[in-house]
């Protein structure tokens, strides 16, 4: 009896272990989502201002007293330009650039003379000027020549409700802290003027100072200074800035820009996810364009027209394409395809143009020779039999394309296109699309082929028995049933192309432009993640935005895969009943 109990216990405990182990799968999926959400969450937080009693230790680098003092341009000057031009301003008088050595004076017409307080803002790249009850934010652009003065541009104007008593500019961001005559401490973020950060206090404020990028000290005439903690992300506390066009400092119009500018102290980082998502989608769609005909054609043939034995041989042969990891494909694209892209394109055009002609010719030839040469039987061998034909078409088409290109004015396709004003970038979307398409072909093939093969043979055979040709039997019987599966295959392929990293890093040029032309480059989410994440400081907004983008990519592939899986499950149910 103890023997039986022991075996039973073993069985139950092993079963438990197995159940626990199976939990890892869910854990991995959930874990990824949760971890990314936790890291990315702070970027969605709004800016906060709160009164505190004692400052946090070691949070931010403190601002030195000289830096605070020099930021006040109300009556003083400060070295702003590297050419030695000092900015001098006094309330009621026009602003001047004064050269320290030659004592040349230049009027600064952009800055208002009737101001009351002026403070440097954002690591000396901007100036906040109080004119009456209006706060104006100006931006400096450094010139290349030390003999030129920096350009000054108005960025924003914010009208304040009440009189302002004290003003201080943030040492890093385009943010000012101010005290009003109604004993209110307020923080104005020029990037996002809608933020309403104000705290009412009960004493009159004399001066206000930024002790560190997150600490404000308000000095009162009577009693102790008041401390306030300020938190803001690099996107101004408004997550919609990740998606909407923004007019950044020094730019004439609104743009979608991805310029995180890591380790740059004096620059405004630009986090717009839009160009990256655009690039990812563009690459994935182009890849589908090239891959779908190829992989679906293969899937139709192998799934429907081939005997079982041959199918067991051909499927792995096509899967051999997976033996090329995407690094290898990217390297081949970089070293072999990219330098010859113009010629490759001409050859491709030649093949595509010549193909219908050759096909038509082929029909005439076979017609002349008699139809005995081409039959519907022995379909198994067609790929091998057609191999020389395909090779011939490719060779002829390529030669035609290349010689045709040589005959174009300019001597090559690229030169001809240049003369019409169209230039092919070295790293262009078409190149990415071709190589990426090759990479996702096995995936799409595998799923589509399964779907086509799952349709019961008897239905297709029935159509044949009724007199239809094999192709008609496929088109009218098999395809309608397999179509959802093929669509699912394309969706999965799209998901893979969207997530692919190596090919995108090597061949896209990583240019953050949003151009519809296939001859220009692009920048994808995955490549940005791979290139920037290892270096981003863990507490920075850059790191958080990258994780948010990772979440976006994950969400996209999740949706695509789930929909595809639902389609496939439904198809399985349908086909099972037949």
């Amino acid at each position, binding site marked *: 009896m103890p023997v039986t109990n022991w*075996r*039973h216990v*073993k069985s139950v405990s*092993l*079963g438990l272990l*197995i*159940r626990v*182990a*199976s939990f*890892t*799968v*869910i854990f*991995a999926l959930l*874990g*990824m989502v949760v971890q*990314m959400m936790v*890291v990315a969450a702070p970027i969605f937080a709004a800016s906060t201002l709160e009164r505190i009693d004692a400052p946090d230790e070691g949070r931010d680098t403190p601002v030195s007293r000289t830096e605070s003092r020099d930021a006040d341009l109300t009556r003083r000057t400060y070295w702003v330009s590297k050419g030695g031009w000092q900015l001098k301003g006094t309330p009621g008088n026009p602003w001047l650039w004064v050269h320290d050595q030659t004592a040349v004076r230049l009027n600064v017409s952009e800055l208002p003379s009737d101001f009351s307080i002026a403070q440097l803002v954002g690591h000396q790249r901007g100036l906040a000027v109080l004119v009456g009850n209006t706060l104006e934010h100006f931006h400096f652009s450094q010139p290349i020549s030390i003999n030129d003065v920096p350009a000054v541009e108005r960025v924003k104007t914010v009208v304040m409700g009440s009189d302002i008593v004290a003003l201080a500019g943030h040492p890093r961001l385009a943010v000012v802290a101010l005290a009003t005559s109604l004993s209110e401490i307020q923080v104005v973020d020029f990037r996002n003027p809608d933020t309403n950060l104000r705290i009412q206090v009960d004493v009159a404020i004399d001066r206000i100072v930024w002790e560190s990028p997150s600490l404000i000290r308000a000095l009162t005439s009577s009693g102790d200074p008041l401390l306030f903690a300020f938190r803001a992300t690099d996107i101004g506390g408004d997550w919609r800035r990740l998606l909407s066009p923004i007019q950044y400092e020094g730019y004439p119009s609104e743009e979608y820009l991805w310029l995180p500018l890591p380790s740059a102290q004096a620059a405004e980082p630009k986090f717009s996810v839009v160009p990256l998502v655009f690039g990812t989608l563009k690459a994935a769609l182009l890849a589908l364009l090239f891959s779908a005909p*190829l992989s679906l*054609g*293969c899937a*139709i*043939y*192998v799934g429907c027209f081939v005997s079982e034995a041959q199918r*067991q041989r051909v499927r792995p042969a*096509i899967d*051999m394409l997976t*033996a*090329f990891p*995407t*690094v*290898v494909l*990217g*390297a*081949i694209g970089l070293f072999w395809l990219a330098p010859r892209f113009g010629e490759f394109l001409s050859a491709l055009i030649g093949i595509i143009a010549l193909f219908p002609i050759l096909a038509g010719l082929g029909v005439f030839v076979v017609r002349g020779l008699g139809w005995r040469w*081409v039959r*519907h039987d022995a*379909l198994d061998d067609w*790929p*091998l039999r057609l*191999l020389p034909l*395909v090779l011939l078409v490719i060779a002829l088409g390529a030669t035609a394309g290349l010689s045709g290109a040589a005959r174009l004015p300019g001597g090559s396709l690229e030169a001809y296109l240049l003369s019409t004003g169209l230039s092919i970038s070295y790293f262009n979307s078409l190149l990415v699309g071709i190589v990426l398409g*090759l990479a996702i072909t096995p995936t799409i*093939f595998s799923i589509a082929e399964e779907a086509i093969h799952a349709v019961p043979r008897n239905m297709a055979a029935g159509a044949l028995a009724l*007199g*239809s*040709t094999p*192709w*008609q039997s496929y088109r009218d*019987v098999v395809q*309608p049933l397999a179509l959802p599966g093929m669509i699912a295959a394309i969706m*999965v392929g799209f998901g893979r192309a*969207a*997530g692919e*990293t190596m090919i995108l890093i090597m061949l896209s040029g990583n240019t953050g432009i949003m151009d519809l032309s296939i001859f220009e480059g692009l920048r994808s989410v995955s490549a940005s993640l*791979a290139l920037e*994440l290892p270096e981003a400081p863990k507490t920075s907004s850059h790191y958080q935005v990258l*994780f948010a983008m990772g979440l976006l*990519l994950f969400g996209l592939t*999740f949706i695509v895969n789930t929909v595809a*899986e639902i389609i496939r499950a439904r198809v399985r149910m349908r086909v099972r009943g037949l």
Partner: protein
Amino acid sequence: MGSNATIRRRRLSSSRYERIRSLAMIGLSASMVSTVLLIGSGLFVLLVASAGDWLFLSSGRLDEGVLDRLNDVFFAKPNLENGLTGLFPAIVGTFSLVMVMTLFVAPLGVATAIYLTEYARDTWYTKLIRISITNLAGVPAIIYGVFGLGFFVYGLGGQVDALFYAKRLPSPTFGTPGLLWAALTLALVNLPVVIVAVTEGLDALPNDLREASIALGATKSETVFNAVMPAALPSVFSGLILATARAAGEVSPLLLVGAVKFSPSLPLASRAPFIEFEQKFMHLGFQLFDAALFARLPPGGLGWVACIALILVLLIGVLNLIAVSLRTAILKRKTFENPF
């Protein structure tokens, strides 16, 4: 296209036009297969030609022979004249990574597959697992790297350091990318592949096997481990080998969790447990990435990149071939029991 599989009402004439068209369309799809095969072999030929050209034909240093070149490929030390780094440490590193990864992915994958086929009823929980598997299969590899960096390296690794290696802090032992975390991350990447392969193998087994075992008085776990598993073992291997192929070629997670450009010491030791888990390592795929983008290539440098790519592709190709032959071996075994 009706929802039932009705044949479309169309004149089913076997007219000549229809027959030609049928032949043409089938011919077109067959030629797609030819094209794919051509492209595949063309890429391989390109790699072999470039690598061969560099090894045998190009003249670098005049006194260098083919054997010297081959020696360079595997054992060269990095120097300033060229960007060559011997691939032997990378091969060892890749091999170690695959071994450690297999150690993690095999039990988890097999256990989950066993759970899904032998133990589970069709509840929301199993549906959730199946959805998770399909989705994990589709998640971009870079996201695994992101998760691996955050959870394994900084999370788990930081905890391990705090608990066991506190004396060495702030210099991290496990709180930094290394072999163990890379292997764990790749184990997650490959988990869906292994699960699907083992599930397929388990599904293919006839129920008679299980029923006979129960009839003879075996408990559930005895049935599973003594009767079912041995029969499904080949599918476990094919799943593992597919995973191996991916581990050798997937570079993006490694950018974040563990590979380095150069490490002269192999992640091996002469004492137990024979593998240094906290070390960073060199990896074939990473070396290819590095050589393609960062290295100043030696004269005829394209060939060097092709060498690395060729070794990588050959490694993966060999593993794939083994998987295929194992699979056909399973299928051949089943012919007398089950029409397949």
